[in-house]
């Protein structure tokens, strides 16, 4: 709650020029320079011509519809699960929460693979339905369509929306709920009149983020969209096949403008709806121990629905894990378990001396490097953000989140043009992939650390200063020890996001520099996909992600404190 206190309180003693300088330099090098390559040379004529093209109009409209269709169910499904985690405590809650977060860090191809395993004509769900309903043909046919893309997005982004909404639910003031109920309000009325508006900021943040991620989707429609195109795919095709860089660049600017306009609209609405109704600091939602008694009435329905959402999220992960330890890839309940798929994966010759063992080493090396540098930069940035005044903080927060709103394909090319070619000449080296991973991990880690720093009681900092400690001494002796767990959690999140990143790793892959997700995709991207080996590879990635996310969740105690 200290974050709600006047930003000026934090900025009065010292204007932190050095951390801000480090943050600005990092951001300039990583984002502004490449972005200038995207923006440079764009013209209004080119822009108008592109906007008038019927194909582009249709693709933008399709992408928008797809993003809305992905966002709304993701948010609706996230509500009960977020409430469940915010309200109830039970043994193993941290691990379950970490398990629930794994899908968000799952590479796109993994869900594509799960879709094959579940919804292919021979897939487990179709087989179960055919047997149960005595049907002759598979009843579900969603592969290679917008439906599959939307389903994949709901799977990916429900956990993300749930983390953000959980933060919102946790900070709902329990005193207000108690007061409303003492005044005779029913649970429904209390939710509608008292709780709902307190959730508006979290809803706005979740909706904006899920929308932007869905709008910028690349690998999901590439793998399971069939003839369904998104703007991001179109940028990729223009760049690689159709008309070259100028058109791809103009389209990516259009996409960026669209995203920024949408985010601004959402946050503007949030301010209009929420600001006038807030009264000072808010308290915390009172937590209850989960027990059978709660399964009666409205709470029971929420808990049951939360379990259903959990199953929905974990079924694809389960399908992949099971498929990796059996010779029957489409079975959810295999009769015999085997380690052959893993043995075969490690023996498989990907050509050019590339092996899965080598890709594990490379992925871990990149992820470790990304985690270290990103967290250092995020510390400097978050420090600068927290010690800015409130308006400055909002503006800087929005700027540092911009990488999430820019086309990955366009940024990949821009990074290539900026640092892939001489003088740095990083193309063909792992460092270029690491740079790209940092760009996308940076907004997340910065938000986590900023959120933690905002919770440090500013009086502690003032106390240290009045005791004669310098600002730097105070930062290292007081603030860092207090937020140390969150810094560690942020580094694990950066590690996980790098480990599972696909787009940049794919675009920058050359012989010998291929991360785990790229190699697994190669197993799938064949006339006859090697599903069993791909499942084994994906299981290894999922296990590594789960360990990192679980460790970060345990260290951070509850949630990840994402403040978006």
């Amino acid at each position, binding site marked *: 709650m200290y974050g709600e206190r006047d930003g*000026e309180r934090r900025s009065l003693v010292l204007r932190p020029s050095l951390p801000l300088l480090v943050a600005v330099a990092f951001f300039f090098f990583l984002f502004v320079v490449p972005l200038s390559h995207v923006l440079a040379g764009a013209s209004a004529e080119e822009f108008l011509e592109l906007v008038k093209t019927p194909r582009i109009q249709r693709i933008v409209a399709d992408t928008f519809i797809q993003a809305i269709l992905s966002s709304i169910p993701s948010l609706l499904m996230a509500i009960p699960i977020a409430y469940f985690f915010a309200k109830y405590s039970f043994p193993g809650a941290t691990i379950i929460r970490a398990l629930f977060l794994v899908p968000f860090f799952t590479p796109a191809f993994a869900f594509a693979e799960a879709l094959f395993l579940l919804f292919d004509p021979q897939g487990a769900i179709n087989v179960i339905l055919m047997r149960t309903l005595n049907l002759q043909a598979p009843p579900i046919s969603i592969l290679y369509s917008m439906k599959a893309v939307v389903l994949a997005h709901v799977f990916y982004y429900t956990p993300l929306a749930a983390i953000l909404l959980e933060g919102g639910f946790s900070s709902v003031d329990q005193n207000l709920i108690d007061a409303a109920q003492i005044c005779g309000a029913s649970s429904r009325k209390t939710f509608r009149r008292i709780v709902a508006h307190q959730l508006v900021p979290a809803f706005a943040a979740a909706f904006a983020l899920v929308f932007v991620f869905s709008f910028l989707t690349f690998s999901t429609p590439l793998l399971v969209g069939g003839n369904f195109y998104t703007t991001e795919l179109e940028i990729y095709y223009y760049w690689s096949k159709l008309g070259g860089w100028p058109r791809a660049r103009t389209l990516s600017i259009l996409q960026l403008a669209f995203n920024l306009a949408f985010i601004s609209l959402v946050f503007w609405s949030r301010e209009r709806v929420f600001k006038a109704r807030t009264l000072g600091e808010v308290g915390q939602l009172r937590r209850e121990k989960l027990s059978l008694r709660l399964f009666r009435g409205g709470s029971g329905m929420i808990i049951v629905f939360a379990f259903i959402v959990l199953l929905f999220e974990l079924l694809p992960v389960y399908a992949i894990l099971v498929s990796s330890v059996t010779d029957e890839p489409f079975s959810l309940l295999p009769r015999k378990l085997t380690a052959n798929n893993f043995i075969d994966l490690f023996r498989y010759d990907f050509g050019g001396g590339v092996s899965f063992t080598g890709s594990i080493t490379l992925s871990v090396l990149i992820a470790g490097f990304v985690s270290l540098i990103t967290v250092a930069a995020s510390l400097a940035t978050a420090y600068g953000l927290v010690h800015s005044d409130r308006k400055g903080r909002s503006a800087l927060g929005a700027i540092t989140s911009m990488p999430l709103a820019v086309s990955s394909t366009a940024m990949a090319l821009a990074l290539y043009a900026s640092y892939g070619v001489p003088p740095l000449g990083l193309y063909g080296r792992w460092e270029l992939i690491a740079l790209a991973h940092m760009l996308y991990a940076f907004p997340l880690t910065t938000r986590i650390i900023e959120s933690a720093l905002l919770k440090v009681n500013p*009086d*502690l900092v003032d*106390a240290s200063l*009045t*005791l004669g400690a310098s600002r730097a001494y105070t930062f290292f002796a007081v603030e860092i020890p207090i937020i140390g767990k969150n810094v560690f959690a942020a580094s694990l999140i950066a590690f996980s996001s790098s480990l599972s990143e696909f787009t940049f790793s794919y675009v920058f892959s050359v012989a010998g520099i291929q991360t785990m997700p790229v190699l697994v995709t190669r197993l799938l991207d064949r006339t006859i996909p090697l599903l069993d080996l791909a499942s084994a590879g994906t299981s290894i990635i999922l296990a590594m992600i789960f360990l990192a996310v679980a460790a970060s969740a345990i260290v951070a105690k509850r949630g990840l404190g994402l403040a978006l």
Partner: protein
Amino acid sequence: MKVEAIGLSKRFGEVVAVDDASFSAESSEVLAILGPSGCGKTTLLRLIAGLIRPDRGVVKFDEVNVTDTPPQNRGIGFVFQSLTLFPNLTVEENIGFSLDAKGWSYDSIRARVRELLELVRLEGLETRYPRELSGGQQQRVAIARALAAETRLLLLDEPLASLDVALRGDLLVEVKNLQESLGITTIYVTHDQSEAFAVSDKIAVMFDGKIEAIGDTFQIYMDPPTEKVAKFVGATNSLTGIVKTVGEEGASVGLGDTVLNVPTKLKIRNGQRIKVLVRPESLLIEDGAPSDSTFQGKVENVLFRGDRVQLRVDTEFGLLESVVRDPSRYTEFLGKRGRKVSVKIDSRSVIVIPGE
């Protein structure tokens, strides 16, 4: 060390937190800044500490302008309302924090910490963490920490506010003794008048960002310069009267049909309207018929407050408050509820202020 604030002003957006505040505290003196919540007293203290920069005005320590000196170089000790003990450090590390920051050797830090622990009577708790201490112990650690390194000025921001009443009384005595034994100039911010009177040599009373009055503690209590200050320091009953006669030692004032002889040195004249401010304990409830020196009222409420009985009486001057420092009379007064009584003013301690 002598502390001076000259014309300090601070605005947060549209809100004027401190408006042209000036005062001084002499060496070894305790100045209490007293005022209601939100009047700007904490902001004023932070301006003195250098935690906030003033929009206007100057802070001087021993005639040296320190307005632009960072807090870490001012030689101050600050005890915050929320105590702000570093949760990740032990008692010993908390107290030695400033010494470590200043590069003292390990042995010197240990020796000084031992000395301070003895001073605040916390020997044996060196290795405990703040969460393992009681509220009173935490308070003592916060004070010891503030005194650790060459402190020339001790700033206390509602230091007892988070403690229960019983503990507050004990610690108030300890703070006073500690300050007297060390002779450090101290500025003590509080909204509690009894705390301010108990601990200070001088009081500044603040309202809405302005210092309304400043002076010797006893003088502020006995002879507050304005009605606002008088009411804040306890003279809550305000009656308007007309001066009948003026003499050497006081004046005769007509309050309705009642005549009251009040001691005052104010320059007043016959026929002038004045305000007579009466403390609840000087408003006496009596049986019997009204006389020249009493007026009639009806008892509206009787509250038992443990060590006293509090009454509200409806009179021709409005609702007046009376306090009887004899709790055994509670039932007696309860029987008078809704009945007419005679009200008498003990004129020895009334405060007279010229009327408008």
